[in-house]
């Protein structure tokens, strides 16, 4: 009998020991698992408004994502494409957080409110919102001074036009687009005061047929260089078909119009992504509203076509240096409004707020703001 009691006692002891050891093991596992994933797998989620194949806006962001993966080894990125703005976006952002993303990046203006909502629920996750307006403790906004690159592309267009009529197919009459048109026109006027920039609105970001019609109407009006602010290469193709010249946007659009394309103001999101993600990984990151320029490498000019004369290229390179050095910027006075009145007097510079809410055209633009 005693032997039997002893046997049961020993058995219970073994069970108890196993349980304690088992618990210990599982606690160890719990403690180690997140450590390992942080060291080996830092996940960054991307919410895209379009598909990376669009050669435009989302394509440029996806190039930045690839650059990020190259620069920070061990980083894992997840992308969700064609996410509609609004309520659907909230679910998509939350989905990325659930999948373990420590950072979520969204590339369109309309993701702002959903992102702020999700950010409230996940204070330990960082959120980066492209072209947004509002920040929070864990939500930053970022954008770039593409107008600097547009000015330089305007100089090239102004030097290359023969009819002194340059066309600009623009999407929507919002400050971002108006600022681009103005910067481009200032660049045109700097090298060719006789040239004007004719604007038409297509009221769409992505509709190749409407954009092509906009381009054709500009060609019919006598324009011999076309520029664009929309996300498809339709304007480039129209210029190529008509045998005239063109300036692209978003990414290097040379391949769509090998003979027509002179250059393209391009986005280069990679360096910003690397800076932001490494800051977040180090724990040194603080929420910010970032508006980087050429000096940061976030915006640039695609390689200039061979047909552009060397002296024009040199002039552009010199101006680019002045911008990078911070000696000069596009909206530095004197800047005249469309009707010829002085808008920014000599010696003054427009503030960022003034630039971000721009709703008037500079001298040399033909067209109206609808």
């Amino acid at each position: 009998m005693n032997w039997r009691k002893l046997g049961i006692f020993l058995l219970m002891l073994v069970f108890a020991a196993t349980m304690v050891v088992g618990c210990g093991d599982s606690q160890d596992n719990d403690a180690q698992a997140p450590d390992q994933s942080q060291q080996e797998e830092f996940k960054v989620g991307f919410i895209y408004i379009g598909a990376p194949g669009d050669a435009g806006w989302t394509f440029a962001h996806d190039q930045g994502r690839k650059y990020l993966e190259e620069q920070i080894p061990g980083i894992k990125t997840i992308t969700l494409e064609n996410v509609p703005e609004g309520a659907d976006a909230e679910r998509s952002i939350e989905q990325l957080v659930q999948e373990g993303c420590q950072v979520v990046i969204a590339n369109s203006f309309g993701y702002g409110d959903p992102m702020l909502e999700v950010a409230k629920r996940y204070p330990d996750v960082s959120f980066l919102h492209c072209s947004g307006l509002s920040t929070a403790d864990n939500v930053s906004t970022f954008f770039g001074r593409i107008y600097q690159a547009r000015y330089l592309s305007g100089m090239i267009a102004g030097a290359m036009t023969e009819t002194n009529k340059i066309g600009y197919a623009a999407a929507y009459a919002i400050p971002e687009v108006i600022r681009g048109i103005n910067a481009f026109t200032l660049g045109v006027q700097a090298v060719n005061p006789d040239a004007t920039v004719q604007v038409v609105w297509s009221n769409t970001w992505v509709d190749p047929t409407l954009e092509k019609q906009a381009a054709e109407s500009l060609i019919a009006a006598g324009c011999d260089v076309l520029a664009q602010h929309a996300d498809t290469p339709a304007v480039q193709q129209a210029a190529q078909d008509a045998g005239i010249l063109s300036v692209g946007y978003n990414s290097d659009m040379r391949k769509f119009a090998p003979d027509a394309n002179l250059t393209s103001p391009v986005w280069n999101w990679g360096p910003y992504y690397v800076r932001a993600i490494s800051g977040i990984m180090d724990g040194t990151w603080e929420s910010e509203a970032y508006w980087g320029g050429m000096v940061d490498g976030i915006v640039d000019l695609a390689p200039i076509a061979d047909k552009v004369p060397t002296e024009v290229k040199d002039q552009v390179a010199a101006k680019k240096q002045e911008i990078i050095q911070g000696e000069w910027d596009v909206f530095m006075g004197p800047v005249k409004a469309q009707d010829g009145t002085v808008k920014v007097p000599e010696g003054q510079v427009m503030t960022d707020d003034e630039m971000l809410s721009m709703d008037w055209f500079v001298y040399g633009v033909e067209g109206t703001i609808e």
Partner: protein
Amino acid sequence: MEINGIAALLAVAIVAGTPLLYAAMGEVMAERSGILNLGVEGMMLVGAVSGFMVTIITGNHWIGILAAAGGGAVMAAIHAFITITLKGNQVVSGLALTIFGTGTSGFLGKNYVGMPAVDRFTPIDIPYLCDIPVLGTILFKHDAMVYLSILTAIVLWYILYRTSWGLSIRAVGENPAAADAVGISVSRVRYMATIIGGIMAGLGGAYLSLAYAPTWQESITAGRGWIAVALVIFALWNPLLAVAGSYLFGGVEALTFRIQTAGIHVSPFFLSMLPYLFTILVLVIVTIRRRQEAGVPAALGFPYDREER
């Protein structure tokens, strides 16, 4: 605007109207047989993407438009099966078809977005005729798809009004029970008319991706399928009037940009509204006149069930 400017505008109106024309003619056929298909936008998108993909793969745009016609036909067959065989609600099925087509085309074309077309329809100057002043510019400097669309309109009109087969289609659309009584197979006629509608919508979509744009972009039709549905009413269910209506709607689209460059101050939003305003007006006029006179098929939208007559 001087005469050459007007000629150029009319030429653009024809090009901009051609995708609408294909889709609208197809919908005229379907509706004439009593089948309302609101899936035109979806069928156009599937046509556009299949035409573009096959052209990239085979390198030949003629094989591409065959694929586009096939894609549209498959989509229309789904609608036909639901509404004719299963006697489902035509409005619901059509709307579902549009959403399905938008999703499917986006999924299929994912890797083709933004690619330049390897082979495409280019304008052909018709010898001698293109040298006629003004008229040559307007009519005889287009691509093959434009000429084909006008030819198709005439053929469809002839079928509808001058052949016994067309009489069957119209009879089925007006009074399926009576048509059934004289030995016409209602479901066979409706299947054929609906599928012709799908083929036409597919061609309309392919016109965007292979001739006009020419590229693939998600939702490249941008609502043109809905304009085509409105156009059918505007054209009083007549393929030849659809030609005029398409060019008018296309002309308004082209005019939006021309008046901007001409410095005339009219809001582009106002102009984009005009086609729909015309459609509402026509709808009002059609409703005031007697339906039959105006051409509205009496059985439009109703499934036919032999047991219920």
